[in-house]
């Protein structure tokens, strides 16, 4: 993207998506991430993500260490899953955390869900590395809604287990499509070529998998 070295302005989004006829599921979608106890239990003993990010913005290196302790493993694991190379995965992790250090304002894009935002940015950057291309999107362009802050390890682990459980119950072909698109970075055309399915089927299958994941978490 052409926006370099500066956070894009966070677009105000006052529209109630639940009222949008294109998106009748939005209200329910949000509720999936706002399951009781999943968002606000970072614990009194540890700083919230917001506090941590404010300290990082104030160039507090110790806060950066805490961010590493909290999300480094997740970011690394996502990059490793994509790249299958510990060295490259660590490079991606270091690069992303340094970007946070150098431009913490960009995390406004995470809308309070720093861990989820880091996980998606890690995946995208790892795919860039996998495809040997320059970053296709600036991190500033990844805007993410919902998902909770995942700041508490207990809650994070609870969510991880729940997501795994729901994903494992999706139809096999949906699981495989999401896996190929998300972790292998294949385009829908490449997935279609690999599976022999029509393009439209692949598109719908990926979307259906995500809807299934959301609904499964609501249940």
């Amino acid at each position, binding site marked *: 993207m*052409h*926006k*370099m070295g*500066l956070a894009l*302005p966070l677009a105000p*989004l006052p529209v109630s*998506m639940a009222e*949008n006829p*294109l*998106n009748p599921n*939005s209200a329910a*979608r949000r509720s999936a991430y706002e399951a009781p106890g999943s968002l606000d239990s970072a614990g009194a003993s540890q700083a919230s993500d917001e506090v941590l990010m404010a300290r990082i913005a104030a160039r507090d*290196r110790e806060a*950066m260490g805490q961010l*590493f302790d909290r999300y*480094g*493993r*997740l970011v*690394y*694991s*996502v990059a*490793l899953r994509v790249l299958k190379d*510990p060295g490259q995965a*660590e*490079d991606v*992790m*270091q*690069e992303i*955390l*340094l*970007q946070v250090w*150098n431009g913490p304002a960009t995390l406004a894009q995470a*809308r309070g*869900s720093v861990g*989820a935002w880091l996980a*998606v940015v890690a*995946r995208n950057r790892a795919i860039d590395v996998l495809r040997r*291309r*320059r970053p*296709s999107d600036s991190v500033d362009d990844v*805007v*993410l*809604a919902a*998902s909770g802050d995942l700041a508490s390890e207990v809650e994070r682990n609870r969510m991880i287990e729940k*997501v795994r459980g729901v994903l494992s119950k999706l139809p096999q072909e949906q699981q495989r499509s*999401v896996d190929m*698109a*998300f972790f292998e*970075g294949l*385009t*829908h*055309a490449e*997935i279609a070529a690999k599976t022999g399915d029509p393009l439209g089927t692949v*598109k*719908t299958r*990926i*979307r259906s998998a*995500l809807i299934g*994941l*959301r609904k499964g978490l609501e249940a």
Partner: protein
Amino acid sequence: MTGGRHISQDDLTLYALQALSPEEAAEVRAHVRECEVCRELVAEINGELALVALSVEQEAVPEGARRRLMAKLAAGGAGSAPVAEARGRGEVVPIRPAGKAMLWTAWGAVAALLVLAVSLEVQVQRLSARLRQETAQTARLMEASAHAKEVLGVMMAPTAQRVVLTPARTKAMPIGRAIYLPARGGLIFQANNMAALPEDKTYELWVIPMNGAAPIPAGMFRPDWAGNASVMMPEIPWNVPAKAFGVTIEKAGGSATPTAPIIISGAAPAAGE
């Protein structure tokens, strides 16, 4: 894909996954920038993708990773140097206040290395695939490529010290340097001695097209404490010959059209000059 209407959730999902072709992605990106509804949907889809990311096996980070991060922070937060992309022939375009001529020998050498790195890299890949027997030649090329990459890494490293040399007792003036390759939409820009800006302002780089069309925004930047800044490979249209380049001060978030005054500018020489 859009036809002026909203984009389907299927396609927005593929967009968020970066699974569309570059052309399709550009079309969706342009729509999403303008459309609040689709922008919000992409944000929600990214939220769902974060859940998928959560499903990975949690692996322990490599030993020493935290120490290495903290060491980088202590050293000033150096990021990884951007990887040089395959580039062809580059044009070198000065941007500076009138009457300033400096450092062009060194800059030209770096530009030449950029081109060298690209051609060597391409050759290395081709040889590796097709001419496995000629390992000696491949090794030589790789060595040269690695050297060129090292030079580029230094050039692009955020923590590299950037010093503009001027005649003694000359007041430091803002200066910018651009390397532009219209055929690939490639643009590398570095600036020094840029004045600090208030929080609500940003510098914005502009490509002024040869054909008289409106200036094209080519990236925003804010200088570091020392007045240095760079814009690397902004997303701009391809095949737009440039008449000139300019930098203006805009409101944070940028502008679609440049706001006077132009802080620094430079005319592009004819291609191949």
